[in-house]
């Protein structure tokens, strides 16, 4: 609905729509005209409102023209608004909106101010070397953090609003000329099509962006660090920032991303390669070791070396549970402890560690309920999974699934489930990008940033797994040429 030139009509309508008590309708005069400034009390900077809006209104003496009125305000962020709905959205976003009698437009001032968390190192991706700043819940701050990393006119931010009640600002971020235009178009369309009451975190958006709604695997990448995001954008990905969330989403997502740690890029290639290999082996151990152990114990004793077999036999003597139940129960206890340690207050965390880890584990073994090898395998499997924390949730579910299959179907059953798992993974695509690239389909050129972390000279081109028109990212000059 358009604004009229009569201020009373507009204010009456807006008061009806914005009836909450935290919204102020401040009556003013601009020269000889009546005016009303509308804002949410706790979302604006009152000092700036005083300096940039209220003070200029006192300078008018007669009847201002449209241009005089608009140009009188010094606020760097000001827009003309002609619709009631635009005004409502702006006010709720934290803008101050000035309505003046006799004009069919309002002026919206971007004077948002609210308490923000300080920029700090995100707990999910700590590094020994490299930048420590992380995203916060404020979208403008996050945008500024990215802009500080990429000072190029090609860096694009496109603003959208998602959520019927939350009207959450969502920003698409990409580098024009590197990101695939088709992908940007699809994402824009998908984000605009989201019809939901509220977006309270970026994870809400990620659920809508996945093309396979029931998949157990992640379909959208995420990071809390601007340096990682900048790196991903430079590879041709598109980022999605959500106001109120310190997590930035990235599309398309490859499974290998979660094996890459930010520190890999700041350390030497050798140590990065070793670290990645360790992560990769750890995930395999974590996912399959409990299942293999149970399958071997129940069905394929010939797999176990004789001396180890004797140790196992001695340790399981008198254990009332079958190996599969025993392993399942221990894993379940581990998951319970894990869940509890995340949710409980920090000051009792130590108590849980002692009770859960030492008392419960030690006592269970001594009491003959759980065998020592089982406990050790569960502990090892649990720790190993945390080398790739991003995959922890998905893989802990899969670990239980493999365990159940191995317990009932033995080694061949486990192989069948692994084959299914492989077929599922290799056929999985999101935004025409295979999840398992560059392993399957094999993209030779991209292998140098997988388990093997190549030297800087080897990263001359952007990854082929991600569509991009601009393929080259650095010019390698030989020392001879420089000298």
């Amino acid at each position, binding site marked *: 609905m358009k604004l009229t030139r009569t201020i009373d009509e507009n204010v009456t309508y807006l008061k009806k729509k914005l009836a909450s008590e935290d919204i102020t309708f401040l009556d003013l005069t601009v020269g000889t005209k009546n005016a009303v400034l509308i804002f949410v009390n706790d979302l604006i900077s009152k000092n700036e409102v005083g300096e940039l809006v209220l003070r200029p209104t006192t300078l008018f003496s007669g009847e201002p023209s449209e241009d005089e009125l608009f140009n009188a305000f010094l606020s760097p962020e000001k827009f003309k608004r002609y619709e009631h709905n635009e005004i409502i959205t702006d006010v709720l976003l934290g803008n101050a909106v000035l309505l003046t009698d006799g004009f069919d437009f309002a002026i919206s001032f971007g004077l948002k101010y609210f308490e923000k968390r300080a920029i700090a190192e995100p707990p999910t991706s700590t590094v020994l070397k490299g930048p420590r700043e992380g995203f916060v819940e404020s979208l403008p701050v996050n945008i500024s953090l990215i802009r500080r990393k990429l000072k190029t006119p090609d860096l694009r931010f496109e603003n959208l609003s998602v959520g019927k009640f939350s009207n959450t600002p969502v920003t698409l971020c990409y580098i024009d000329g590197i990101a695939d235009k088709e992908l940007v178009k699809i994402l824009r369309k998908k984000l605009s099509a989201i019809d939901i009451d509220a977006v309270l975190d970026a994870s809400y958006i990620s659920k809508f962006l996945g093309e396979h709604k029931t998949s157990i695997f992640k379909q959208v990448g995420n990071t809390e660090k601007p340096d990682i995001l900048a790196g991903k954008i430079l590879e041709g990905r598109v980022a999605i920032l959500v106001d109120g969330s310190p997590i930035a989403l990235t599309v398309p997502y490859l499974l290998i991303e979660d094996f890459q740690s930010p520190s890999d890029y700041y350390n030497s290639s050798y140590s990065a390669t070793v670290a990645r290999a360790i992560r990769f082996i750890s995930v395999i151990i974590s996912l399959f070791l409990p299942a293999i152990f149970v399958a071997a114990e129940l069905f394929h004793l010939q797999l176990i070396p004789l001396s*180890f077999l004797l140790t196992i036999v001695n340790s399981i003597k008198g254990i009332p549970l079958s190996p599969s139940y025993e392993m399942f129960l221990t894993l379940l206890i581990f998951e319970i402890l894990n869940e509890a340690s995340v949710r409980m207050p920090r000051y009792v965390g130590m108590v849980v560690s002692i009770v859960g880890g030492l008392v419960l584990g030690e006592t269970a073994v001594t009491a003959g309920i759980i065998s020592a090898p089982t406990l050790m395998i569960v502990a090892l499997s649990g720790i190993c999974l945390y080398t790739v924390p991003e995959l922890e949730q998905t893989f802990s579910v899969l670990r239980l699934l493999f365990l159940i299959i191995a317990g009932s179907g033995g080694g061949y059953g486990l192989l069948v489930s692994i*084959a299914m798992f492989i077929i599922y993974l290799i056929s999985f695509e999101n935004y025409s990008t295979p999840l398992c690239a560059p392993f399957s389909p094999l993209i030779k050129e991209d292998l140098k940033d997988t388990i093997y972390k190549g030297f800087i000279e080897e990263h001359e081109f952007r990854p082929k797994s991600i569509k991009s028109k601009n393929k080259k990212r650095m010019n390698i000059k030989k020392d001879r040429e420089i000298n």
Partner: protein
Amino acid sequence: MNYALKTRQVCLFIIAFLPLSKLFVLPSVLAKIANEDLWLCTVLSLLLDFITLSAVLYACKKADTDFFGLLRANFGKAGEIIVLVLFLIYFTFKAINPLTEQNEYVKLTLYTLMPTLLYFLPFFIVCFYLCTKKLRILGRAADIMWLATIIGVIILFAMSIANADFSAILPISARGTTAVLKGTYKSLNWFGDSAYLLFFIGNFKYKKRDYIKIICSFLIHAIIVTSFVIIFYSIFTSIAHRQRFALTEISKYTVVINNMGRFDYVGIMLILLSNMFSLSLPLYFSCKILNRIFNFKRAFIAPIIVVSIQVIIMVFLNENIIGFISFIQDYGGIYFLIVGNILPVFSALLKPKEKIYANQAN
């Protein structure tokens, strides 16, 4: 044109999947027939496959559409269906032997305490799932599974080669030509894999040096199979035919076993994993044929039919299947030779679609 496969995937497909079904029972069967000349039977069969593969690659070079399109353009709809039915029968029977071997292997080697078909039946879920997928996924599977095959084979070779006495395969052709030819004839069921590549025609961009690349990968496959049978016979010599499952037996004398358990099972498990894809191939291509003939609207109908037939055969012939396989080996050899080797050779004579339509227009 958007191709489903890359030449690299065709090469890796040959390395990853073609050698596997020949590593289970074939060495002991050949050892029984040809003794120390078993490797000559293998080489002869591989030579037949090599000739077939060369012809198929020539067809790939000329083709401007896929195999189905070429058949339709050259023989019309009826002719196409006749040829496809021949291949459908071929793949159905070709699948029985390796599936039975696998079932036996699973029962007798992995589940010695509870040998039952039930442990093998879940394999058909994998088979069904793979059959619903497009050719592109098979290429991607090759991209990843070749590593499992190669590591598995290397582990087995490394753990067995020290026990081999290679003089056991000498003198060459000691048993005479008849034994070698008989062995070759009986082993046709395990070979004839070049027919799979017919279905890759028009599905990858054939470039100038692709012939060499694909033939090289075929040679790697041939080397794996031949080396395996040679090492196998060199270890067991005159009792080789009693070692039914060469894959498990080949490394059993290694000293590492005492210290590390059956470490060779790591290799065996990797091969078994890769073999799940390999075993699914005849059924996979049967599904493609059925889909072409009946043009099913849903991707799962052909796999359900094809997999159900194999499950029924496995379940109903459970204990009597060995007799059925002997029957196939004795009387089906000619059919396997014709459809698995000779018929694909004629693919080289198929004219490209464009050429036929141009001639018709003139």
